[in-house]
């Protein structure tokens, strides 16, 4: 989304910002080192599934870190943010000590600041385009840590601001799925004055934020506060409802819904189709994480079971793989291993997650790929065969292609295997709406600028379009879709 340069300029020219810039010479600002995020000790935290690893900056730490920001004339950091947060404005409010205003600034464009401050890969986004990174070749301003600080401060202060919404325009729109794309969409649409209903298939709102990302990285209560905020703005949530199944699009249209945003996610786990993969004890990361996060399976108080392995192998190198392996460690695994076919450099996971995993004693078996599983007489996996890999020329993704080292097979004992090699788009909606254009991968095809699909009143975003991306990219899609759906409905009204 293009940022409004004029707005940024007006905000930057305000007296308080100008004065703050003068308060400290730039060379003093750049001389400071990046504040480190305080963390729970690895030996302590691996004993708890629900204790957050990062404990958050103090007010003083946040102000010091915020003072590193140079409040650039051309804030390139914003170019790296898919939801175009006015980063210098919120950072400078923190330096000023006005933490509540900082939080308000985040909420101008982001529906989930406390979430993004925790799970965004900032090193690939705002912090990658920070002046420090690009020009000074120094550690960037810790924008992610500051975002989390401001959102947490506001929540804990008990005086949450509810963003202003336009007067109701009486038009009903629906969001399908309740993950980050939908929530971001719903937040913007309700601000524009629409009557927004979010439909969720599961019994909890939040999508991947609830079933996927573990408590030690993103506590559910933090997601709940953001949901509560959206509800206060007027967003309606309906659980246990599958659009296309429980009711058709036609049914909903006859109930007054004028347009739809489909963000049903990449909810179809991929497997590798290797011998023995359907033995018991081999499951998708989606299944494992859903059991633990959504169903509380690790607690004896809850009915859903989960296998607590001693020798746990997690296949993959993404964030979901890290979440799974670290969960297994917390549930008592003696060996919790990552098995990844490329090397550490190519891992798609957030740098911080890999670092945390290493601290927690996760074993990394890189350049290794499973080729077969073996089981006991009851069909329970007890051994896996691994093949060594080496790296060749870069492939279409720009990462070096893994090549098999012939004759390098070896076996290791395992009693739980979690397959985290990616997901495919959920086929439910595309299969229910025949005229909807989908790609050969099953993703919904949209105009990249407007997120509009081949059916005019149907917009889509997040993993159902991207096929497996990040929370923040999904949120960016939600904002884009909201802006263009608003335009579409206004134009329709004129006709």
């Amino acid at each position, binding site marked *: 989304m293009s940022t409004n340069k004029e707005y940024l300029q007006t905000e930057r020219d305000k007296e308080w910002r100008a004065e703050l810039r003068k308060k400290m010479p730039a060379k003093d600002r750049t001389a400071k080192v990046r504040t480190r995020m305080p963390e729970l000790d690895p030996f302590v935290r691996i004993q708890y599934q629900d204790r957050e690893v990062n404990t958050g900056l103090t007010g003083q730490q946040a102000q010091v870190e915020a003072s590193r920001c140079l409040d650039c004339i051309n804030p390139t950091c914003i170019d790296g943010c898919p939801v175009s947060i006015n980063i210098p404005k919120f950072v400078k409010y923190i330096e000023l000590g006005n933490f509540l205003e900082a939080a308000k600034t985040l909420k101008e464009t982001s529906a989930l600041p406390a979430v993004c401050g925790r799970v965004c890969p900032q090193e690939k986004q705002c912090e990658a385009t920070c002046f420090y990174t690009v020009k000074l070749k120094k550690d960037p301003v810790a924008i992610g840590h500051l975002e989390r600080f401001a959102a947490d401060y506001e929540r804990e202060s008990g005086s949450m601001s509810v963003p202003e919404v336009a007067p109701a325009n009486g038009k009903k729109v629906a969001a399908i799925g309740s993950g980050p794309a939908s929530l971001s969409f719903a937040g913007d649409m309700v601000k524009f004055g629409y009557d927004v209903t979010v439909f969720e298939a599961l*019994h909890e709102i939040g999508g991947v934020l609830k079933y996927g990302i573990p408590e030690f990285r993103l506590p559910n209560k933090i997601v709940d506060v953001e949901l509560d905020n959206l509800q206060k703005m007027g967003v309606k949530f309906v659980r246990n*409802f*599958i659009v296309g199944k*429980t009711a058709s699009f036609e049914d909903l249209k006859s109930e007054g819904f004028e347009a739809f945003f489909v963000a049903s996610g990449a*909810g179809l786990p991929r497997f590798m189709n290797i011998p023995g993969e359907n033995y018991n*004890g081999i499951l998708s990361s989606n299944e494992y994480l859903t059991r633990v996060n959504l*169903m509380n399976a690790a607690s004896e108080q809850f009915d859903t*079971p989960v296998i607590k392995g001693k020798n746990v192998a997690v296949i993959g190198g993404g964030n979901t793989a890290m979440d799974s392996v670290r969960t297994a460690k917390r549930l008592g695994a003696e060996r919790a291993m990552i098995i990844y076919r490329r090397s550490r450099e190519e891992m798609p996971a957030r740098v911080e997650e890999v670092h945390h995993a290493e601290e927690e004693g996760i074993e990394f078996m890189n350049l290794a790929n499973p080729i077969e599983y073996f089981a006991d007489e009851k069909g329970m996996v007890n051994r896996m065969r691994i093949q060594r890999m080496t790296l060749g020329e870069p492939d279409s993704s720009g990462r070096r292609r893994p090549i098999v080292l012939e004759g390098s097979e070896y076996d290791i004992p395992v009693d739980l295997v979690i397959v985290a090699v990616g997901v495919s788009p959920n086929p439910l909606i595309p299969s229910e709406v025949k005229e909807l254009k989908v790609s050969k991968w099953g993703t919904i095809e949209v105009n990249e600028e407007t997120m509009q699909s081949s059916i005019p009143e149907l917009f889509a975003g997040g993993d159902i379009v991207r096929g497996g991306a990040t929370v923040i990219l999904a949120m960016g899609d939600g904002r884009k879709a909201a802006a263009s759906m608003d335009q579409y409905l206004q134009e329709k009204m004129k006709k």
Partner: protein
Amino acid sequence: MNQIIDKVLFSEKVAKFVVDAPRIAKSRKPGHFVILRVDEKGERIPLTIAGADPVKGTIDLVVQKMGVSSTKLFDLNVGDFILDLVGPLGKATHIHNTGTILACGGGVGVAPMLPIVEAFKKAGNRVISILAARNKELIILEDEIRKWSDEVIIMTDDGSYGTKGLVTTGAEMVIQREKVNECIAIGPAVMMKFTSLLTKKYEIPTQASLNAIMVDGTGMCGACRVSVGGRTLFTCIDGPEFDAHQIDFNELIVRLGGYAAEEKLANERFLSSN
């Protein structure tokens, strides 16, 4: 929504619930299932829909008391609410006019078979239904099945009702007697396996409806994966019905026991706390 309007005991361990679920009652088709969660601590469990009344806005669910979750559901009474109920899920049965249908139902599998039998009959087929169970007490929905069948054969393991013997004995008798165009089999995995082996011998196309372990029921978790014709498919979105002759039943039976150890522990805890 989700309130229990009626509860009919079929036996000490099997009950039919009539549940207020107007949306599902309207949109469900034969073969569809729901996922439900009884309470805040409950599991999400799949149950095939046994019938619906779109005017009253209710669906019928039949449950057999087995482990913790089915017992919690079984113990609910008229007026109680099921906390979460979502559906209809899965692909509907392909109903068409093909001639003679042989419908084999084992135990509580007769419940999901009822709407399928009804639909095949209404589509103009000759329908022969076989109801099989361990004993007379476990034969359910006989009158309802009779209403939509040209002939009903009862088989019990102990001979306490109908003919003594397994479902396959009855099925083979029919197949040898007259031309059967298609077979459906719903019941315990072992029963479906042997029915499938029998109809394969006679080259009769057969559909089996699977009741796999599931968490979400929407394709997300993959717990319900099943090998069909050498390909791994998901029972929740590709099924629950598949070409029985292509299903790897041995793998299915092993996979149904995937959490047996955990379930046994949970059941012991549950029983000792009640």
